[in-house]
C-alpha cells in the first residue's frame, strides 16, 4: 500500500508546487518545500529533495521558469515562477483532482460507513 501512496504523492507533488508558486509568486526551492510542509501540517513530505526533481519536471514541461536572483534577506538563490502554460495546467489539474477525489470519495463512502 506504501507504493500507492508514493504514486499519489509524486503526481500531486507537481500539482502542489504549481499551486504554491501560483499563490505565493516567485519562490526558491526551500521556500516552496517549507510552504508545502506548513500547509500540509508537516507530515506529507518525506524529504525535501524530491521537490527539486519536481521542479526539473515542471521546468522541462515549461510550466515554470527558474532564474537566479536575490531574496529580501539579500541572499542569492534560484527563484522559480509559474508560467502561463503552468497556470493553464494548474487549472486543468485542479479540476481534474476535484473530480477524482469526489468520485473516489463517493465510491469509498459506504464502505467506511459500514
Amino acid at each position, binding site marked *: 500500500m506504501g507504493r500507492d501512496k508514493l504514486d*499519489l504523492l509524486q503526481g500531486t507533488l507537481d500539482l502542489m508546487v504549481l499551486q504554491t508558486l501560483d499563490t505565493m509568486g516567485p519562490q526558491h526551492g526551500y521556500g516552496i*518545500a517549507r510552504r508545502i510542509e506548513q500547509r500540509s501540517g508537516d507530515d506529507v513530505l518525506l524529504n*525535501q*529533495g524530491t521537490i*527539486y526533481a519536481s521542479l526539473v*519536471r515542471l521546468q522541462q514541461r515549461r510550466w515554470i521558469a527558474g532564474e537566479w536572483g536575490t531574496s529580501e534577506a539579500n541572499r542569492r*538563490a*534560484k527563484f522559480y515562477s509559474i508560467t502561463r502554460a503552468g497556470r493553464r495546467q494548474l487549472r486543468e*489539474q485542479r479540476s481534474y483532482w476535484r473530480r477524482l477525489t469526489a468520485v473516489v470519495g463517493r465510491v469509498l463512502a459506504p464502505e467506511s460507513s459500514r
Partner: protein
Amino acid sequence: MSRPPRGPLPQRRPVGLFARLWAFLNQQRLDKDFDAELKVHIELATERHLDRGVPLSEARRLALVELGGIERTKQLHRETRSLLSLEALLQDGKYACRALIRSRRVSATIIVTLTICIGLNAAVFTVANAVLFRGFRTVTQNQRILYIDTQRDGTGCCVSYPDFEDWRRRMQSVTDLGAVADRRVAFSEGAGPPESHTATLITTNTFRLLRQSPLYGRDFDDEDALVGAPAVAIISYGFWQRRFEGEAAVLSRMVRINGTPTSIIGVMPDGFLFPQNQELWLPVVPRPELLRRDARNLWFAFGRLAEGATTERARAELATIGEQLASEYPDTNRGSQPVARTFSAFFVSPTATKAYTVVWTAALLVLLIACANLANLMMARALDRVHEMSVRAALGATRWRMVRQLLMESFILSTVGAMAGIGVATGCIGMYERFANAPTLAWSEGLLNYSVDGSVILYACGLAVMTALLFGVAPALRVSSFDVHATLKNGGRGMSPRNRLASALIGAEVAVALILLAASGAVVQSFAHINDADLGVTSEGRVVFNVSLPAERFSSADARLAFFETLEKGVGMHTALQSVALATSLPTGSAPRRRAVVEGVHAGEVDGPVVATLTVSPHYFRTVGASLIAGRDFDARDDGRGVPVAIVNERFIDEFLPGRDAVGRSILFRDGNTDSLITIVGVASNVLQNDPNRARQRFEPMIYLPLRQAPPQSAWVIVRTDLPLSVAAERLRRDVHAIDPELPIWNGPFELTERLNGSGGYWQVGINASLLAISAAVATLLAAIGVYAVISHRVGARIQEIAIRIALGGTGRQILLLVLRQTGIYVVVGLLCGVVGSIAALRLIGSYVLGVHPMDVPTLAAAALVLGTVAVVACVVPARRALRVVPLDVLRTA
C-alpha cells in the same frame, strides 16, 4: 526512492526528449548550478533550525535529514532532468551483458548475422565510396577541383596545349589551371637494362595546385619547363623505395629517361599518386610539336575553384571561353567545347556509378532483411521475458528504463556485430585490392583509396545504430507496454498477438530476397553472355606486348618502320612461334574513328560516315584468328612507295556496299591532310573494336591500313605460340633488347585472353555480378531462416492448442492450415510484390548492363521458383513438428 511510472494525474505533454538530451549534453554546467542551489537550500534550512535554538551541528544534521541526503538528491535531480546518468548506463550495460550471456545461442545467432551483413555492407561501402566519392588518395578537397577536357557532341577527350594556355589566361573562377599528359617512359641508369615505367607529364604548378610538396628535394619551378632547360624528374615514394631502396643520395643521381640524361630533383610523400599510379613526374615542356592547336596531346586540365566560386560559374565561364576560341580558331576549335567535371564525373563512368549504386543498395537490402529477422528473434526472446519485465515494472522500474534496458541489449549486439563486420570488411577489401591491382588489368586501380578508414568505420557504426534501432525498438516498446497485472496473473504466458507483424516482416523479406535473386540472376547471365561474346578472334595461345618508340629517337617514319620490321622478323624466326603480327590496338581496344567517303556511295556527301580505323601488319588477321573473305592480305608491296591500300571488314560491306564488289573500289578520308585515294584490296571477317567493356558487342565498319604505309609510334605485338607465357615472355624480351638495348617492353607480355578479360567495365561487371550473387545468396538464406523461425515459433507457442485439436480428432490438414495459413498468405503476397519489384530492378539494371530486360520471364520465374521452394521447405520442416505432437505428452507437461 523509486519513481512510479506515472502520477495519477493526466500529463498531456510528455517530457521532451529534446529537453532531456539538452540536459544530458550540459551535464556539468547543470550539476554546478544545482550544487549552488542545494547549498542555498541547506543554509536556509540550517538558519531556520538555528533560529529555533538548535545548536549548529544539530541544525545542519536536521537540514540534511529533511532534504534526504545531498548525494541522493543530486542523483535524483540528474536522473529526472537527463536522458541517463552514467551510473544508470553502466548498470544497464552490466545487466544487458548478463541477459545476453544467459541466452547465448540467440545472442550468437544475432552477432553472426550482423557480422556477415555489416561486413558485406562495409566492404561494399569501402569500394563504392572510393569510386564514387573519395577521389584521389591524397588530393585535398577533391570537390573543389575541376577536371577539364575538350569534347565534341558529348564525347571525345584531351586538350591541346594552346587551348589550355588560353583557358588558363582567361578563367577567373579558378585559382590556376594545371595540365596532365600520360605516358610511359624508358628509364635506364648507367649500363643497366632499360625499364618501362609509368610517368606523367605535368605543368610545373601541379603540386602547388594540389597543395602537396615533395618529401625530399624540391618542387618543379617555372624554369624547368623552358625549352632547353636541363631535364628533371620527381619520383614517387613507392618508386624510390622499390627502385632505389630508399637511398638518400637519389637526389644527386643522373638517370636516362627515353635516352635523355635527367636529374632526379625530388621525392613525393608516401601514398601520393596523381592522377594514376605514377612512378615519375616530368614537367610539360612546350616544344613546337606540343604547340599545335590541332594536336590534343594533354590528357586533361584541372583547376582549383577560387574562393567563393562555384562549379556552375566555372562551367558557364568555360563555355564562354570555348565559344570565343571557336570563333577565333574555327579551323581547329569549331564544334568542340571544353567541359569541366568533378572527380567522379570525370574519372568514373556513369555505368560504374550505377553499378556501384545497385550493389550498394543490394547490400543495404540484405541488412534490412537481417534486421527483420533479428526483430522477430528479439521479439520472441523479449516475450520469453515478459514475466521478468513485469516483475521489474511492479518493483518500480519505469517504462523508459525498461525500453532503455532492451535497447541497450540491441546496441551491445550490434556494436559487437559492427566491430566483427569491420574485420570481415578489411579482409574482403584486402582480397579485392589484390585482385584490382592485378597487372593484366588495362586500367589502373591504384589511384583509388580502398582503405578501411574513418569514414568506413563511421558508416559501420551508423549501420550498427540503425540496425539496433530497427530490430530493437519494436520489441522494446512492445514488451514494456504490457499490462503488468494481467501478465503477472497469467504467469507471463499467453501473449502472442505479435504474429501478424512477424509474418508481415517475413513477407517483406521474401519480396526483397526475390528482387535480389532476380537481379543477380540477370546480371550473372549477362556476365556469362559477355564472357561468351563473339569478339571475332581466337584469343587462346596468343601472347601480346606493347612497344612504344620514344619520339625523341624515332621521329622519322623510316626509323620506326625499320624498328618494327626488324622486330617482326626477329620474333618470327623462333620456330615455336607460329605467326606474329603488329597492330596499333588489341581486339576490343580503341580504333580511332575517321570520316571517310567510299567511291560510288558517298560521292555527293561533304563529310561521309564515321568509320573506325586500325593500322596492322601483314598476317594480322591470321594471327588473331580472323580470316580474309575476299581479296588479299597486306604484304611487302604495301609500303611507303607503293599504292595506298586498305582492307575493310564484312560489317563495312553490309553497311556501305551490300551486294556490290568492294575490292578495287577506293576510299577517301575527309578529315584532314591526306587527300590521297586509298584502294580496297581485301575484305576481312569482323573483329570487335572500340568496346573494351563489351558493353555493346556490335561490330562496326572498319578500315584496316597497312603499318608499313603509316608506321605508328607505338604498337602491340601479337604472337601466336604454344609456348607457356613465361618462356615466350623471356624470348620476346631478349628479342626486343637485341634490336634496341635502350628500349623496354612497355606493357606485357600478357596472354591475350587475360588481357581481354582484364579490361575496364568487363571486369567491373564480373565484380558486380559476384557481389550481387553473394547478396542474393545471403538474402535467400536469411529469408529461409526467417520463415523457419516464425513457423517454428508459432508451432512452439501453440503446441497446447495443437495437442488439444489432435486429441479432439483434428486432421493433419487442419493442423497444417492452422500453423501455416497466416504466414503462408504473407509469403505469397511477398512473392507477388517481389516479382513486381524485380521488374523495376531489372529495368534499372538493364540501363547499364547489356542484355538485361525488365520482362525477362525465365529469370523471374526461376527466381520465384527458387525462393518459393525455399520458403515451402522452410515452412514445412517446422510445421511437421506440429503433426508429430503427441497430445498426452504435451498436455501432461503443460
